[in-house]
Structure formats: C-alpha cells, structure tokens
C-alpha cells in the first residue's frame, strides 16, 4: 500500500444494504481527505443459501459482510485507502483479511468505554481500529490529522447507501 504524499490521506467507507429478496449489496467508496470521491466499487447482491444460514448461525452476517463482500471490495479497488471505515461493528472482522487498517466509528457514548490503545480521532469522530498487522498507530495518527477537524465521517456512508440503492433500482428496472 502506498503511503501517499504528505497531504495524501485516503479514506475508504464500507457499508452494505440488505435487500430482503436479493441479499446483501456492499459498497466501498474511497475519498480524499476532504471527502471528494476517488473510486467506488460495489458488489452484485450476495445471498447466503440455506445451508450457510443454518451453519453460520449468528456469524453469518460478519462472514458475508466482511469476508465475502469487504475482502472482495478491498482487493478489487484500484485506489487503495489508507484506512477502511466500516459502518457497522461487524465489518471490523475485515481486519483479519486485509492488510489495510479497518476501523468503525464509535458512538459518543462508547468512546469512554473503549481501550484508548485501539482508538483514533479522525475528523469529528473517534474510531475503533481492528487489531491487525496493518495497524501502525503512529503513521495513522499522523495522517489522520490531515482530515479537517469538523469533517463528518458518517456522511459518506449515506452516499454509499444511496449509490447502492441506485444500483439495485437500476438493475431491477433492467431485469423487469
């Protein structure tokens, strides 16, 4: 992974939406430090079969979201982010599968309970970083300061969700 220039810090925003009939659709948006989009990748719907549902039980969602969708998207994306922010805690599992640090945004009430060693302030939020080999606190801490302090890290997830709904809508229209 390229560390980029001094002013270069790219964020990946990973989330998924679930369609009752068609399954999960995941999207990864990579932006520059100001939130401007650089690349977007999304998956076709992934629907676990009955056997997977039974055998994975409560671990099904992390498996689908992180191992199937998240890992594929991170591998596929051309503009590699310096950190991947997952919208839900289940996506932290992705940290076991990719070299890039993976984090999820902590709610204000969760910050005090989290281990400070595992957290990092980015923009207006505090994120919980998955403990994996790609987690270089010092470098990441330095880079994350490039993000404006008032940056809203939740907003890009809205964009990703909108984009996923748009792709689902278009593919549905094409199919009908």
């Amino acid at each position: 992974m390229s560390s980029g220039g001094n002013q270069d810090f790219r964020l990946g925003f990973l989330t998924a939406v679930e369609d009752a009939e068609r399954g999960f659709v995941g999207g990864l948006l990579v932006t520059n430090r100001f939130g401007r989009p650089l690349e977007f990748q999304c998956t076709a719907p992934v629907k676990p079969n009955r056997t997977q549902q039974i055998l994975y039980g409560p671990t099904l969602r992390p498996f689908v979201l992180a191992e199937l969708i998240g890992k594929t998207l991170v591998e596929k994306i051309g503009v590699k982010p310096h950190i991947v922010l997952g919208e839900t805690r289940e996506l932290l599992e992705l940290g076991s599968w990719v070299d890039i640090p993976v984090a999820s945004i902590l709610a204000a009430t969760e910050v005090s309970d989290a281990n400070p060693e595992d957290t990092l302030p980015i923009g207006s939020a505090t994120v919980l970083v998955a403990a994996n080999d790609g987690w270089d606190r010092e470098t990441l801490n330095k880079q994350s300061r490039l993000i404006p302090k008032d940056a809203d890290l939740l907003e890009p997830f809205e964009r990703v969700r909108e984009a996923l709904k748009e792709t689902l809508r278009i593919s549905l229209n094409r199919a009908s």
Partner: protein
Amino acid sequence: MSESGDPTSVPPAETSEPSEIVCQSIPFGVATDIYQAGVNGALQRSPRMEAQALALLSRTATLGPSWKPQRARVTTFGITFPEAITFLKPKTEEKPERLESILPPEPVVPVEEVSAGEAPPKKATRIKPPKDALTIEDRLFYVLQPPLETWLRGQELIMPFEPFPYQYEGIAWLFAHDSALLADEMGLGKTMQTITAIRLMVRSGQVRRVLLVCPKPLLPNWQREFRTWAEELPFVVVEGETERRRLTWQMPGVPILIANYESLVRDFASFPEGEFPKFDLVVLDEAQRIKNRDSRTAETARALPRRRSWALTGTPIENRPEEMGALFEFMEIIPKGGSPDLKQLQSLSRDFVLRRTKDLVMKDMPPRLDRNAILELSPAQRFAYDKAEKEGVIHLNELGDQISVQHVFELVLRLKQISNWDPLTGESAKLESLCADMEEIAASGGKAILFSQWTRSLDWLYERTKQYGTLVYHGGVPTKQREPILAKFKEDPDSHLILMSYGTGAVGLNLQFAGYVFLFDRWWNPAIEDQAINRAHRIGCKSQVIVTKYISKDTIEERIDRVLNEKRELFAAILGEGDNTRPSLSLNASEIFGLFDLKARQGKGTRNIGPKPPAAA
C-alpha cells in the same frame, strides 16, 4: 438321491379328525446311480480358511452429503472519478499551519437570526442525478458527490461568504445539468451560483475549458466575481487587438475564457470553419441577447463547439415566449428551428429551467419600497411643455396619413425631456425634489443611484449635484474608467450619488450598499426598470431600498406610467403562469398613438416601436 421310507407302505388312515380331504400316497420310485466324478472327493473336504489384514479408511465415513466453507465468487462493479485539477492557491495567506486555512468562513446570515446557544441545523444539499443521466456510471457520479455544504464550507474550496440554501440548490442543479437555463430573478446571485458550479466542475475534472460570454459592460463585473468566488481559478479575458484575441482563443491550459458577445461573433467568423476552439462548457450571461434566433449572435452561440450549454437570464421571456425557444435551441434540447408550443415549453422548463423569485427565497430580505413622486412642473417647464405638446399634436394631425409611430415617438421624447428640465431656463421640479432628498441621504451617510434614459440629462444633473460627491456612469464613460468609479462610489464616504443610464447601469452590477434608487425618467419596459432597481435591491442589501419614481403631473409621464403598470402586471402573469397570449411588454404602436388619443393609421397596432432595449455600451 433316494426316497426315504418304504414306497409300498400304506399310510394310516387319518381318522383323528373328520375331514373330507383324503391323503393318499402315490408310489414314486426313481432309480438313481452315483456316477464317478472327480469333484465328489472335493465336496467331502473341509474348506480352508485364511485371514488377511486390510488398511482402514483414512477419513471418517459419512452418512450424508459433505459441506465445507467456501468463499463464493462475488461480482463487483466500480467507477473511478475523473482526476481533480489542483491549482496553486493565490498568495493571500502565509499562515504556517495549513489546517487553519480551511476553517469555515463566517456566515453572512446575521448572528441574531440564530438563537443563542443553538447551532443552526446542518443542511445537506445533495447533487441529484439529472433525468437525462441514464447510465449507472453517470448516476453514481452525481450520487457519490459530497453534499455541497461539506464540499464548499471549510474544506477543499474556501468560500468567502456562506451561500444561502437556495443558492446551494442552484449550484447543485447547475452541476448536474449539461443543458441549463438559470433564470433566477435579478439580484439572487446567478453570477455567484454559476461561478461556484464552474469551480466545482473544474475542480472535479468535469470540465477543463469553459467559455463565459457576457455583455461588454459586465466584463469587469465577472472578473471581480471570479476573483471573489473562485480565487484559485485562472481566467483570461478575450480582449485587445485582433491578433491578440486570436492567440487568447487558442491559448492552451486556460480553464476559463471570458468574452463579450461582440468579440465572440467577430472572432468566430475569422476562424476557418471547424477550427474554432472547443469548450467543455459555454455559459451565456444575459442570454436574452440570443432571443432572436436568426441574429448573428444567436447563430454564433449555437455554432460554438461545446459539450455543455448554460444560459443565464433574469428575464427568460422579455417579450414573447418564443424567446424561450431560442434559448432552448442553444441549449440543444429542441431541434434546430423547433418552436415548441406552450405545453412543451412548460414541460421543458420543468427539466431544464431553474427560476426562483425573491418572494420565494428571500423572505428575510429587506423590502423594496416604491413611491411615486408626482411633481408639478415648474412654471417655466409648464409653459414649455404645453407649448411643445400643442404644437406637436397640431403637427401630427397635419401629417395626416403620412404620420408614423416615429413622428409620435419624437414628440414623446421631446415632452419627456421638458419634464426633466426646461431647456430654456434650466428649471426642474425633479431636480429640486432630488436635491431635497439627497440632503437627507447625504446627511445620514446613505448612497443613492439615479437612472435616466439620457446621458445628456445625467451630465446636466452632474453639474448640479456635485455637492453630494456625485459620480457619472454611462456609455460615454470609457470602459477602463468604470470599475474605479464603482469602487469609489462604494468606498468613498463622501460619494453619495451615482448617475447611471439604463443602458449601462441596469444589468449585472452589484450596488447593494445603496439604499436609494431614483428613476429620474421612466424606461419603456418595466423589466428594464426592475433590472435597474435590482442593482441595489439584491442579495446582501442590509436595509430596505427606497425607490423613487419621478412623474410629472399632467404630462405624458403620467400616461406612460399607467401603461407601464399594466405591463408590469402582465409581465408577472407571463413569468408566473407561463401566459403566452400577450405579444410584447414594450410599448407598441397603438399604445404610443394612444398617448395622444391618436389612432394608429397603418393598422399595425402590435408592432413594437419602442426604443431598442439598453444595449451594451
């Protein structure tokens, strides 16, 4: 084998149980012989048993189908965004800490409007994909753009002032439209919205070469606005000698070219066919300039090689709805020469026109107070006026069938001039009233704009109002001197009055610091008068704007005012409801004749004979 027992013996009779079934043995004898064969001995031998060790199965035997976790193949789809263009920031700040420069600017909205202790709710203006964006790539491009507020405020692009919500919406709308007509009412910030949308498009790699065309007097205004709203964007104005202009047109690496209509038409014609430079976006300011689709200006605009076409005007229908057709043709949303009917125009307007009025978006804007100053002519003026009118009407009647609207028109102008001041004695009721008002305005440190139809009147007034630090701004003032005049009017606390012609001062200028507007005489079209008034009554004005319209009692001015009021109501009806039944907002021949109770002799009552609209100086 042999039958066991004696085959001849008789079985005992079955008497124990009475039965009708009688069993009887039948003698059956078969003679058997044992043949000598080799196998017989083998049959009598005991079998030989041996044990052999076999390897066990290496895996557990299963009873059902096997399963192991497998990563399913996930199909993906992606888009990469165009590479953004970065520009060097102008040398205006030398702060060592980079991050401090991206703090949000102070909002323009007065602080008291936000209740104490409460942060104003953050509004997110999202860019919506246009209806004509059909591919998934195109639609995702727009959906994935950040909200304008976060894009602009305190982040990558520094805004000098916080735009109003409706301006954010306008910017987002322009950004997403290849063909667009921004028709906001005058004073709502079309310039700023356009510049910001261009800025976003350039910065996001959507466009690399933009041409902005405007009337010549507005060139300094656009330059100033570009410096204010997009300080990092380099622009070049097409001006100078022919060769220099030619080089400018072809200059590579310039994202924004600004040209006036006249030089565009001239220079376009000088290029061999097909060799005129191509543009990603062409913007026409005051686009009513191409309302006559057969004019050279309109033809040139349509012939420009371009990918996107935007038009800006506060008066999309100045006279007739067909003018919209001319704009739509430039925007390439109707075929060449197409003349959509009212229903089609309305449908196209929904998709490609954005128009907001002050009433709609600026509920908090200070009001505009119109007052008619109806003045008695001075005795000398009255005498001169009555004499001129009497002689004039007699002359018109003498002309008989030779009379034309031009003859009537000349009389109107003559009478209007006398209403301004008496050419013999210099007496002027309007001047007296103006000076009385100006005393008060100057004493309170206020500023006023005065509009007149004649530069001669302006020069005459200038000589008589110098005590108010008066400045003159009309077509006779060389272009290079105009900007300093406007700057002086704004900055010099001793300068309280600027005299402007409708032609030069009515469009595009931002004079919202002036709280007073005087219409010394009346223009022929209410839309032009409104444009003039809106120099002061526009976004950013801090207090109410008082508009004084001078009308001399019992003169032609009263009659013109009556017609203009009717026109103004009509204008609102057309723009508000798309009414296309009225032919013209300027005075037509019947109306001009009607000013003197004369009838149009040539039966062309709807012919527009009003003066030409204020042309670019």
